[in-house]
């Protein structure tokens, strides 16, 4: 479990966090979204124990595994040596360590590169190694800061599946991303951060329910009539009733997480 209450963090004149609250339960994946500078990485640094807040506190129950946004790997050692290092620091040794290294490598499609130096790996492979260092010890809390940034679709799928498995196993996950479809795939709850605060929190369905979708009707002659609405059925019925020309096409677009993201993170 992770509970952040009233976190404040200032860097000189810049306020990175300004009363940041977040509660994530075991087995839950919380997708933390927001524009650059919203305070996401600062929150990760505090929750990961890298820096202390100026006010507020974080309560973390259990071990924490962190995959930071920046690649933080030793280029001169192999993938196996990297995984053994982080597994060893988490208290694993002997056969359990070897099993964890092998299992995590297989899970993230790294088995073939276990004995290659990190410096010769592709960007996507390095991303997976970085995620593996966080996932391998089986931590109770996982903090993943844009783990799929720049990753190819295969890497992304492997990572998402591994994260989902950890959550299914009871881990508390905070997953920071700009790729919102990933949160749908992960069945994550969502926290939208802006100006150092969480301004909206809930499941995707809860957060989308008051957001307008779009009804688009194409009439004869090619003209398109577009109406934003929270009740597409009633809006469409009213449109069809009032139209005096034949209808050639109807398109109903439900609100998406992208709409939510734009709406909330830009709202003043």
């Amino acid at each position, binding site marked *: 479990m992770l509970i952040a209450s009233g976190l404040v963090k200032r860097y000189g004149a810049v306020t990175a966090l300004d009363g940041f609250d977040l509660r994530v339960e075991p087995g839950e994946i919380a997708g933390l979204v927001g524009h650059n500078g919203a305070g996401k*990485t600062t929150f990760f*640094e505090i929750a*990961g*124990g*890298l*820096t202390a807040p100026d006010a507020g506190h974080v309560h973390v129950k259990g*071990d*924490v595994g*962190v995959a*930071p946004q*920046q*690649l*933080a*790997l*030793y*280029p*001169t*050692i192999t993938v196996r*040596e990297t995984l053994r*290092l*982080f597994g*060893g*620091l*988490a*208290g694993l*040794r002997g056969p359990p360590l070897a099993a964890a290294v092998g299992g995590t490598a297989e899970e993230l499609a790294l088995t073939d590169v276990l004995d290659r130096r990190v410096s010769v790996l592709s960007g996507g492979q390095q991303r997976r190694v970085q995620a593996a*260092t966080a996932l391998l010890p089986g931590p109770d809390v996982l903090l993943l800061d844009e783990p799929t940034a720049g990753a190819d679709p295969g890497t992304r799928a492997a990572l998402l599946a591994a994260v989902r498995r950890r959550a299914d196993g009871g881990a508390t996950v905070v997953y920071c991303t700009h790729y919102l479809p990933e949160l749908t795939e992960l069945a994550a709850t969502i926290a939208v951060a802006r100006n150092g605060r969480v301004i909206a929190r809930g499941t995707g369905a809860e957060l989308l329910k008051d957001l307008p979708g779009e009804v688009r009707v194409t009439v004869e002659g090619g003209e398109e009539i577009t109406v934003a609405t929270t009740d597409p059925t009633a809006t469409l019925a009213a449109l069809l009733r009032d139209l005096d020309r034949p209808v050639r096409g109807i398109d109903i677009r439900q609100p998406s997480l992208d709409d939510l993201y734009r709406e909330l993170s830009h709202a003043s």
Partner: protein
Amino acid sequence: MRREPSREIEGARGVAVRASLRRVAVLARHNALLRRRDPAHFVSYLVMPMVLMLIFKGMLGEATQAVTGLLVMFSVLSMADVANASLTERSWHTWERLRSTRAAVPEILIGKALPVFAVLVVQQAALLVYGVLAVGMRPAGPLWPLALAVVVWCFVLLCAGTAVAGVVRSQGELSTLCNIAALSVSALGGALVPFALMPSWAQAVAPISPGYWATIMLQAAVRGDVAGTAGPAAVLAGLGTAAGAFACWRFARGWGRSSAL
């Protein structure tokens, strides 16, 4: 059966201490591996003084001055290597990554320092053995003052190198700083030219250079002069402790995203 609370606390402490020692061992093994993967500087700081010792012996006609002087000069140069071991952790962002593991900052620093210290000791010891076998230096008296001198000097290099790694902003800055320090510390300290031959102004300012204390400590140790070794060793130990305290403080704060590397 009820257990005594104090025994339970002791047991928990014992488990925590063992876990801490295991993490230090994991980190020390990891850092030894990093050193093994990049041995170039270690080799160059061994070979270069070995060649120069023979030339300086011929010029000065005095083996102890040639051996201890060049040992001091090249060990200050190798401080760049020590600093680099910590600087790479900053440029690779791995320092922050390690801090986010279960390992505490003192464990990370000790795990990093142990292999670096071992390499420094091996380097200095190899040069002294070479000095005896190939240059003709003749240590008198017991060897333990020499061992003490090597350990103290390596401690200073380790702490000073790590402190420097905490403040420089680039590899270029580090290299410049260490090159200037090596030459000025060695020259002012009487490592290149015997102290008695230095101009009077240089003799007056020599004690501000750690190289001065290192040189007179090593020369006293070679002579088997215990008192002559202990005094400079105490001065250097104080310097090393101050530099080490600063390095611990700086690295414990970390850099986050503000790393200027």
